[in-house]
């Protein structure tokens, strides 16, 4: 709590710090750690391939896209296997993170209506769980791009940056949607449709350069487009993504973080009473 003492700047800084602290659940590390552990274990404990499923199914999908777009339709993109994998795996993460995160309040109604938990914790836990499985894709992407002869170097580190961007966008969006779902349960179906359209509005199976010049500005308005095309640049061109892609995707991450923070403490909307 900001005290009565202290200048306006101090209070302001404290509020910013507190918001940041709460948004990333820094005061709840033990809780986040345990719940992420629970999620990962429960998802895969009783299945044969375990954690591999999260990567295996998008990889199968990527392989199908590879066959359709490269072998049948002859898309003119070099290193298409690396290209498709570096697009489909992060997209699978993003869409899963949003769709599961949207359910984090309604799906845990029994928990949040009985224990005074900060509502963002569950969404954050979901996003972290998905981020961990996503990080398992890094060695796969590096291996495939090396196999296709794409150089490995400092630019490869930028994968961490773009993954964080996707994480922040997905977390902020999921937080807002999770509150929305309490009021409109069919948001789930609407979002399933939107995610399908969003997939094709994002340069995942096609490259940014294939988009006609006059539509590119529209694609920049897609919060994940620059992050995904940045990943394409890293794993297929083997070079540092352009400063535009870095700044624009970073901007979207900040934007969604701010939106998420604004919705974080909306208890007065009566979310819990509505469950």
């Amino acid at each position: 709590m900001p005290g009565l003492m202290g200048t306006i700047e101090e209070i302001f800084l404290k509020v910013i710090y507190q918001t940041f602290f709460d948004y990333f659940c820094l005061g709840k590390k033990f809780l986040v750690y345990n719940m992420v552990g629970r999620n990962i274990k429960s998802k895969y404990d009783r299945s044969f391939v375990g954690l591999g499923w999260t990567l295996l199914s998008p990889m199968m999908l990527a392989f199908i896209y590879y066959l359709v777009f490269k072998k049948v339709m002859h898309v003119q993109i070099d290193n298409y296997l690396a290209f498709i994998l570096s697009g489909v795996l992060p997209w699978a993460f993003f869409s899963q993170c949003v769709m599961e995160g949207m359910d984090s309040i309604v799906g845990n109604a029994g928990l949040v209506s009985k224990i005074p938990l900060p509502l963002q914790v569950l969404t954050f836990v979901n996003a972290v769980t998905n981020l961990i499985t996503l990080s398992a894709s890094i060695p796969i992407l590096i291996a495939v791009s090396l196999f296709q002869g794409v150089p490995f170097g400092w630019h490869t580190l930028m994968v961490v940056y773009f993954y964080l961007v996707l994480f922040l966008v997905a977390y902020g969006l999921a937080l807002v949607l999770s509150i929305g779902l309490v009021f409109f349960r069919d948001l789930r179906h609407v979002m399933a449709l939107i995610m399908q359209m969003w997939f094709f509005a994002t340069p995942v199976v096609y490259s940014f350069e294939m988009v006609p010049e006059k539509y590119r500005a529209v694609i920049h308005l897609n919060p994940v487009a620059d992050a995904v095309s940045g990943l394409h640049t890293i794993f297929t061109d083997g070079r540092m993504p352009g400063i535009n892609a870095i700044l624009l995707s970073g901007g979207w991450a900040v934007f969604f973080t701010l939106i998420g923070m604004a919705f974080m403490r909306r208890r007065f909307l009566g979310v819990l009473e509505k469950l």
Partner: protein
Amino acid sequence: MSEPIIEVKNLTKSFDHWMDQPHSFKNLLMRISKGEWNPFKGRKQFTVLNDVSFDIYPGEFVGIMGRNGAGKSTLLKLISGIYTPTSGTIEARAIIAPLIELGAGFHPDLSGYENIFLNAAILGFGKKATEAIVPSILEFSELGEQIYKPIRNYSSGMLARLGFSVAINLEAPVLLVDEILAVGDAGFQLKCLAKIDEMHKSGRTIVLITHSPEAIERYCSRCIVIENSRKVYDGDAKGGTARYKDLVFTDPL
């Protein structure tokens, strides 16, 4: 007397009770197409607690009684900060640990041992605190080797025992206990009540919701009876249980 540890003043809580709730877009669109633009039409207020006031002082053991649906659990959720009051205020001058559900967040595929950590984390324990209480949980829950098996094979009594063993280690100065003792066999219930009483004797403030007049008379120093969303009795335990029995047996719903 010292300052109250929980101060509830003119507390009122209403819920929206929708006659036809626009819970889906289809519903909303249909209403708009019928010319009903006001999304709040069809909303009725449903008052669960009406102008309830009381103070709880440090070291008290307060029992709250009332028939089903009288508003007891809502009151507890308001005090613990899950719900926000429609009007009136609740002032808490200490950390409050609500025990509204035993074994919150338990996952069936994890072992009892792993669930201890999960449950403790959800209840607000840190890492060190949890590690410190593990031995006493193992002892109190009497689960033996079963603790290392997935809890999907546990009986409901075993689950209750495990959940309660974690919960009683909460260090908060105020404990809100909601009917959680209804599960488990009679012996275990007595053990839990005795444990709660022991915590009370060590200086904690306890608020207990129960339907058992015996428990109230045996342990509570004070009893509050809620009926039809209002506080109808606040005084010693004997009078409270008499009032409760009156309500239950002479005025059936």
